[in-house]
């Protein structure tokens, strides 16, 4: 179970987002910055939420922004965006959201190993609060257990 790459270029701390679309776009921009997605991937992630609702808010305070593998995805990767002011996605239980994980997956058959590694991290119930409070990219990588 290996976590998709989460380089420093894919981490944004204390960002300002006017609404959930802006927050998801930041997570997409961070994936693009680290080279695993094209900028258009943000639009795909937003479209999933417009189509199906805020189901990506899978735990209190955390959104797992993602879309299907497609031409906008260039590699497997994660991004982490923490917000200075949380935004609402309109989720019945888990709003407001202060941590956005962006996930890009190149081929569907590999996604389970990737998300299993993500599940390992967040089954520790303090991980979301720790991420929201992190002040450096190194701290985020440590919480996400990125090998040094």
């Amino acid at each position, binding site marked *: 179970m290996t976590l998709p790459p989460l380089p420093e270029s894919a981490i944004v701390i204390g960002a300002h987002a006017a609404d959930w679309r802006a927050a998801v776009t930041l997570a997409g921009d961070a994936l693009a910055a680290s080279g695993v997605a094209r900028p258009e991937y943000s639009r795909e992630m937003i479209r999933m939420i417009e*189509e199906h609702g805020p189901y990506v808010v899978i735990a209190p305070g955390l959104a797992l922004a993602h879309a299907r593998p497609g031409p906008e995805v260039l590699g497997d990767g994660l991004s982490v965006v923490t917000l200075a002011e949380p935004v609402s996605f309109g989720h019945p239980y888990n709003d407001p959201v202060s941590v956005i994980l962006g996930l890009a997956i190149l081929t*569907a058959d590999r996604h*389970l190993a990737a998300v299993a590694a993500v599940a390992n991290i967040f089954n520790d119930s303090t991980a979301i609060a720790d991420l929201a409070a992190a002040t450096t990219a190194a701290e985020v990588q440590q919480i996400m257990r990125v090998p040094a």
Partner: protein
Amino acid sequence: MKIVTICGAGIGSSGILKVNAERVLRKLDLDATVVAADISSVKDVAADAQVILTSPEFVETIGKTFADVIVIENYFDTEELTQKLRAALE
């Protein structure tokens, strides 16, 4: 027994739910196959399923089914999953 986890893309959130459901089933010593799928394939994938795990957003689209539809609020809370799976399966 078959359990299906449903999300919008069939990757990502449904995968997390599958991984955590398998962990809980092992702990409860229950034998089941857990399949992650996207909402557009739910009718086919869940036709022979006993349980569907999903988010509140998908309940209406899943519609009429023979399976128990269980709504999970916090995908990382294995305690919630344990309680809801136990109530449905035992």
